[in-house]
């Protein structure tokens, strides 16, 4: 067994045994870490593997959260049946928006994705009769069996683990190779027969779907959902997490999720107001002072041009 596989097993065992050792608060923190890790990994399928940096992924997170929550609250559907709607609705949203977004590259891609996310935010905000608008939707809870921190923790862990397995398969599949080739050299990819836009759209939809699943999981974890799940500052989260942990490796975003959430917990409990300031400052510092990002501190090569770690 390779050393990284061994590390994963150790981690998996530790996570599985956590409820026996940790108080509920830390289980909740781990649950959040898992959700953010999924969100960031889905996001990184586009960024690290596909070379497409989206500034509007909160849209799909929010679409997933609202889809699942609305089904439970307005249609009375049990959570386990409503949750699959999260990735589905998010995928539809990603398809609709993606058709336009993948026509562009780099800066315009980022900008248009940001604008679409703000559209989603505004629609959620203004459609008060459906979404509750600014007041949000409250009392969005899982069924009694999953309600305790430990139970929901296991549920989330299992869902996220399965999702990561699926995403990992995608990244190692022929599709993943093709996606990387498009990232490296779209012109060349075209001339080995790849329809670049179509492939990018596919990646966009897959990424959006899993982001939506993360949103759905978060809705029932949090117990309430609000329009600012779609606000652009939420879009910033998977980006920072992925950069923090390393965008060029598959598990980088998960590592980043640990670091990010623990930092957030430490800072927010003391000075809640200062968290965005801290976050923004870290990002600015990392970009200015550490061209290689945090991960580059260990390596030595330019982070953005590093050879992928896991293939």
């Amino acid at each position, binding site marked *: 067994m390779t050393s990284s596989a061994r590390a994963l097993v150790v981690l998996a065992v530790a996570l599985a045994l956590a409820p026996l050792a940790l108080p509920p608060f830390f289980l909740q923190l781990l649950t959040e870490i898992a959700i953010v890790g999924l969100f960031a990994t889905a996001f990184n399928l586009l960024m690290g593997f596909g070379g497409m940096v989206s500034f509007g992924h909160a849209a799909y997170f929010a679409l997933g959260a609202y889809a699942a929550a609305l089904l439970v609250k307005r249609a009375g559907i049990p959570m386990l049946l409503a949750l699959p709607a999260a990735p589905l609705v998010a995928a539809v949203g990603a398809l609709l928006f993606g058709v336009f977004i993948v026509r562009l590259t780099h800066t315009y891609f980022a900008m248009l994705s940001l604008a679409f996310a703000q559209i989603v935010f505004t629609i959620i905000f203004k459609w008060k009769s459906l979404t509750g608008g600014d007041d949000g939707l409250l009392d969005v809870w899982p069924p009694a069996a999953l309600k305790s921190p430990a139970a929901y923790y296991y549920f989330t862990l299992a869902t996220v683990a399965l999702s990561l397995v699926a995403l990992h*398969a995608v990244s190692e599949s022929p599709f*993943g190779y093709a996606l*990387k080739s498009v990232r490296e050299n779209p012109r*060349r990819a*075209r001339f*080995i027969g790849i329809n670049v836009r179509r492939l990018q759209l596919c990646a966009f939809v897959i990424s959006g779907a899993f982001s939506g699943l993360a949103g759905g999981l978060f809705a029932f974890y949090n117990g309430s959902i609000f329009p600012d799940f779609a606000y652009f500052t939420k879009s910033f989260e998977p980006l920072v997490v992925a950069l923090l942990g390393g965008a060029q490796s598959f598990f980088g975003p998960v590592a980043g999720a640990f670091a990010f959430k623990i930092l957030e917990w430490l800072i927010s409990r003391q000075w809640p107001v200062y968290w965005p300031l801290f976050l923004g400052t870290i990002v600015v510092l990392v970009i200015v002072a550490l061209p290689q990002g945090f991960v580059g501190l260990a390596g030595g090569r330019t982070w953005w041009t590093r*050879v992928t770690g896991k293939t």
Partner: protein
Amino acid sequence: MVDPSDRQDLVLQTIGLRKHFGGVLAVNGVNLSVPPGDLRAIIGPNGAGKTTLFNLLTGDLARDSGRIYFAGAEVSGLSPDRLCRQGMGRTFQITSIFRRLTALENVQTAFLSHHRRHYDILTPARRLYRDDAFALLERVGLHEQARKPSGNLPHGDQRRLELAIALAGCPRLLLLDEPTAGMAPRERHEIMALVARIAGDTGLTVVFTEHDMDVVFAVARGITVLHQGAVLTEGSPDAVRGNPDVQRVYLGQPAGR
């Protein structure tokens, strides 16, 4: 008008191809006919329109007017990925590979796409077409470098890799845009000899642009001379060499670049 039945015999044919570039007529009514198995060199002084013509052929540029036929079927205006599927392969003037992937992965990806497996999201790709990729890399002399990140390879090896990538698509026509650019003279002959060998073995038709006349006359079976966006003359190497118009057009060119 060329009779459609004649067209069938030609791998590549263009009729009246025209392209403006902001006021400049870069390609001015080019009629090209390339029979199967040909090793056609397209030569001409700088600015003659060689690269523009190439980009028109490969769908990277939209033509203003004219038509392109590939193996008898009209392909004018098709996108590069569609043309590739029809059987056209190309290399670029500036080496165009997937730099952060290994040489092996470069060729594997080309195979995966060729076999239309690039939407497969479930199978691990690491082993797919690996033997085929190794074989192809060996063919172009890159067997040793298979596992190295292709961006780290020396220039000449990157060129060979690009050739392998293009060949992975089992093309009927290979378009090479200045394949020997940036190479030392001996390497130039080596790579073109390799191209000629592969073409001979597989019946592949090759069209390439080239500045180095030694290479052209060593390898080409047919030569098309472009001048100011139009075909000046076309024919066998000897015929072209002896053509007074050609000599005049090349007068003042530095000898043997």
